[in-house]
């Protein structure tokens, strides 16, 4: 998280840290046996991570905490429409992990709500993005051992698409924006999610409840002026999420 702050304990209790073959990613608790994350966290170059390779940490804000202990995955469910062999297609960047044992919730571990069927993404609405990914301290970018968060507004699809088009002119191999994605960030830069936050939550708040509006997916650079973070639009996947959980 660029330009954010350290999250106090128990403020983002749905945040999970995933560690897969040394790669760091984020996730969120959505039920007592289910974690939602980004597909690209679990699948590289067309190869899915094994259940055993996935270590899931939850209820923590400090990776160095002595009580750190992973929970095991029982099964991994990557969206069937995710096909990102060359790292250029983040459409359907969503996945579910079923845990071997159910979690008992408390103040440090709590699920985030799924979107309502009629949930909307209002431009400018501030969302809470969090993660253990790259952060910036004293102008140096380092991988954070603390859970950081930043409040980012939902960005209209048009300007976001324009920013990506612009980026494509100056560099090769920039992914495309689809209707299964939305953008969040500030045009002046300085606040953004970054590498290592992937799979983590973009949470909106309604009636005092946080709901999972987006999943940290991709972006051009982190926190640069004129660029935005791109998030998987969770409302588009409610049917798949419910179906996957019911069938498993």
């Amino acid at each position, binding site marked *: 998280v660029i330009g954010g702050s350290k999250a*106090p304990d128990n403020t*983002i209790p749905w945040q999970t840290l995933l560690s897969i073959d040394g790669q760091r990613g984020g996730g969120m608790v959505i039920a007592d046996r289910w974690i939602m994350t980004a597909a690209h966290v679990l699948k590289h170059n067309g190869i899915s991570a094994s259940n055993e390779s996935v270590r899931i940490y939850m209820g923590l804000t400090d990776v160095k905490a002595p009580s750190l202990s992973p929970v095991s995955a029982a099964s991994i469910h990557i969206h069937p429409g995710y096909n990102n062999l060359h790292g250029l297609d983040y459409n359907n960047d969503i996945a579910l992990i079923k845990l071997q044992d159910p979690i008992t*919730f408390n103040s440090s571990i*709590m699920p985030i709500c799924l979107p309502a069927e009629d949930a909307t993404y209002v431009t400018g609405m501030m969302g809470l993005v969090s993660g253990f990914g790259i952060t910036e301290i004293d102008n140096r970018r380092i991988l954070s051992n603390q859970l950081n968060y930043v409040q980012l507004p939902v960005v209209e699809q048009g300007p976001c698409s324009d920013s990506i088009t612009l980026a494509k002119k100056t560099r090769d191999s920039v992914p495309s924006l689809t209707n299964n994605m939305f953008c969040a960030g500030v045009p002046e830069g300085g606040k953004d999610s970054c590498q290592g936050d992937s799979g983590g939550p973009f949470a909106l708040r309604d009636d005092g409840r*946080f709901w999972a509006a987006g999943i940290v997916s991709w972006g051009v650079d982190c926190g640069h002026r004129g660029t935005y973070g791109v998030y998987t639009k969770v409302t588009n996947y409610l049917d798949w999420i419910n179906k996957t959980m019911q069938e498993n």
Partner: protein
Amino acid sequence: CWRLPGSEPLMHGEVKSPEYPRPYPPNLQQQWDLSVPEGYQLRLTFTHLDIEASAGCHYDALTVLYDEKVLGKFCGHENSADGHHPGNQPILSPGNRLTLILQTDDSNPERHQNVGFLAQYQAKDIDECSAPEPEDGSGPLCSQICLNTLGSYLCSCHHGFELRSDQRSCVLSCRGGIFDEPEGYLSSPGYPNAPTHAVSCQYIISVESGFTVSLNFTDNFNIESVDTQQGPNCLHHWLQVTIPDREPMKLCGGKSPGLIVTNSNTVTLDYHTDNDGMSNGWSLDYSTHRVKCPYPGNVAKGRVTPVLAEYLYRDYIFVRCDQGYKLMMDGQEMESFSTMCQSNGQWHLPLPECHIIDCGEPKPLLNGGVTFLSGFQNQYRSVVQYHCNEPFYSLLGGVNVSFTCEADRRWRSNSDIVVSPTCIPVCGQPTKLIRAYQR
């Protein structure tokens, strides 16, 4: 020799002269031996008789005989001036046989051709019982009771007597003295008359176990007693009443003992007289009553049904517990209970108890708990309430529901829910919010 089938004497028949209704031939001597079964008389009725008439039926005649006794000799016809015509009156044989003999001479009147006779015969039952006593001094056909039957008769005897092997005379009898019907009548031989000989009779009244016998002597009671210094003594004649497990009672005198309640299902009566003295005897009606069982009592928190004034042999009672209570006996629960009044006057099972039911521990609630609101040890009418571990879980439906231990041993909510409630996770509401006051 065996009698061939079909050769039984007929009950009725017809007999006619040769060649009837054409004239009979001359020089005829023909005999018919008619018979009907034993025990019947034979009655012969002429429907037509036309035989040459002559004085004394000298020339042609039809003679009717029983054994060798001539019952009639007939000739002529209905309107003839001479001869002897039987007319319409039937001829009744003293026994079951009759012989007819038709005899004709060698000449017949030229102008009148006689056609002979046609007669019908039939069996007529003999009422042997109304027959006069034989004069040979052998006495009446039956010494006591005569019953006429078709073709025969039967002798029978009054109560206390038995038919001898001669099937006609009766003798005093004490045999067959076991009475097992629920009620009946007994009397001494010859009652109300004194028997002519000494008697020693035993009567056993033995009814089904579970019933008791009561003897009710009629007023006409007469058994000879001997007056002694200690009072009347049943010295030579007596009726002894023996009830099991009790001292036998000897009865005599002229006063009826009236009602004797034995409280036993078996009573033995021994009647003894000698050849001397005079006892007219006794009679009694006996009846039976069902054995009584003690009042069963009450059951706390239960009901005993039916409620009767008294409980008798074979009566059943049932015990039902009040709602919320269960039937228990010897530490075991019973689905239902009934007991029967036995023949020994005892209930076959003692009454059970009614214990309050319990619903067992309320089903534990995952991520929640249960609180007792009222009641004791999960017993009937206890009330519990489920709760979830807030703020992380909330009850599905959102309303706190209390469950009551009902009579069907299930915890039920007011809305009749049997299953335990469910705690669902609370989402998106962290206990601590990120606060930022800097602007």
